[in-house]
């Protein structure tokens, strides 16, 4: 493409300091979650029972805090697209609250550790990368990790997410929670069960696009390094 590159954005010092602080807090939080997870597997082996209890509080806190990133992208202090950031954060928060937190059956199944592994490793790498990037000190090995680990972590993560969603379906089918039924004055319905199904179906078109986009990014960034 012959379009000229945009001039690199210049961050004010307070904004930069704030972002470094935010990313450090997230890095520490997710590192702690990673530690608790590894600790669990080391002591209990490949047993899912009890894993949720080990990570519940920090997971709820630090993953929910990601909503700040939507504000960051909307205010422009990070270069990401608002829509994409919103979609990414939303999908995490959706898995976290109405699925994992609300439906206790989802914590004892195979999908949960899968998504937890994917989320923790990805986030630890990502936030470390952001910190060092703000300080213009990203080591090549970290960059390589950030743009290579996703190749395995993405599929693992979405497999875990889809399995977890599927496990939550019976609960919502029976309880009809978060649903609006007829008759009502405004002739409006919302069926949360079908909403979850819709979200699961949305993975079909969305995942290949995101995965493909990451590969393009990888090609662009890792080959640029070689040219240096």
């Amino acid at each position, binding site marked *: *493409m*012959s379009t000229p590159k945009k001039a690199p954005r210049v961050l004010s010092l307070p904004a930069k300091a704030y972002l470094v602080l935010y990313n450090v807090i997230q890095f520490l939080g997710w590192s702690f979650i990673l530690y608790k997870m590894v600790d669990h597997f080391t002591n209990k082996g490949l047993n899912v029972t009890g894993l949720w209890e080990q990570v519940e509080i920090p997971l709820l806190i630090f993953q929910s805090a990601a909503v700040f990133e939507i504000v960051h992208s909307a205010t422009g202090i990070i270069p990401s697209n608002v829509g994409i950031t919103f979609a990414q954060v939303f999908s995490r928060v959706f898995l976290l609250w109405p699925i994992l937190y609300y439906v206790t059956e989802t914590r004892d199944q195979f999908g949960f550790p899968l998504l937890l592994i994917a989320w923790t490793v990805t986030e630890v790498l990502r936030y470390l990368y952001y910190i060092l990037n703000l300080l213009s000190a990203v080591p090549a090995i970290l960059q390589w990790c950030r743009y290579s680990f996703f190749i395995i972590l993405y599929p693992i993560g979405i497999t875990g997410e889809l399995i977890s969603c599927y496990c939550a379906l019976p609960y919502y089918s029976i309880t009809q929670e978060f649903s609006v039924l*007829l*008759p*009502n*004055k*405004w*002739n*409006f*319905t919302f069926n949360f069960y079908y909403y979850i199904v819709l979200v699961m179906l949305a993975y079909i078109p969305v995942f290949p696009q995101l995965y493909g986009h990451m590969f393009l990014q990888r090609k662009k960034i890792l080959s640029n390094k070689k040219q240096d």
Partner: protein
Amino acid sequence: MEIGILSTSGGKQLATLTVDPNSTLKELKTQIHRLKSHLYPDRQEFRQEPRGKGLDESKTVAALGLKDKSKLYLKDLGPQIAWKTVFLTEYAGPLFVYAWIYTRPWLFYGEDAASQPMSQVSHIAAICWVFHYSKRILETLFVHRFSHATMPVRNLFRNCAYYWVFAAYVAYHVNHPLYTAPCQIQSYIALGFWAVCELGNFSIHWLLRNLRPLGSKERRIPRPTKDPLTLLFNLVSCPNYTYEVGGWVAFTAMTQCIPAGLFAFAGFYQMVIWAIGKHRSYKKDFKDYPRGRKAIIPFVL
């Protein structure tokens, strides 16, 4: 003289054509089609810059100021589909989907639903819906004059998904056995407003048709005619969209149904984007374009 044809994506040289100054771009398209069999003329768009405006194919090479060794850019518009095919699928779909759900099939409502009573508004709504889409089909067949004969195929899938899914979504609620009708006065007033909007929308389409001579792609400033419904042109550039939105708002008020409201909003959102684009285009193309006009909402937007 020789003209170099470059691709708009990447600037790669696609071909060198030998033309005379009186050749039209349409003839150039035929030449390119002979060289590259997958690029039928409807799929080609010439531009003077990679990201520039598409050029009118009836223009000659000389009229565009092209000389020997000049360059033209060619955009591949992707697989195209004829408009006739488009409206049959895009508009017939919602018509049949709504009509089918109106019969309360067991697939959506269970076995007993069809035999249960239906409110008068639900019947009227079905008639309105079918009328609206029939009108659209007929207008596309007999009224509209298109500036481009085809559109990209991928748009068809996207548009159909939108129309068909929304049709099912609205129909499911309005025809539901547990549907609650609003008070009759509200429905009748809304119905009246809807009828005026349908007629208004048609009036504008009729005006726009007569604005453009047969076979031409000429554009002129639309102005009100003797039809009072066209007076809206004094206030907005796209009164056809204004009436269309008005019609859906009326349909929503008539049925008091949030899904219909969501559909109306989705349509409104898209039409605002189109109207603003068209409004800007008018202002750019016509130096004497009337000042007081807004794009779609009088005095506001």
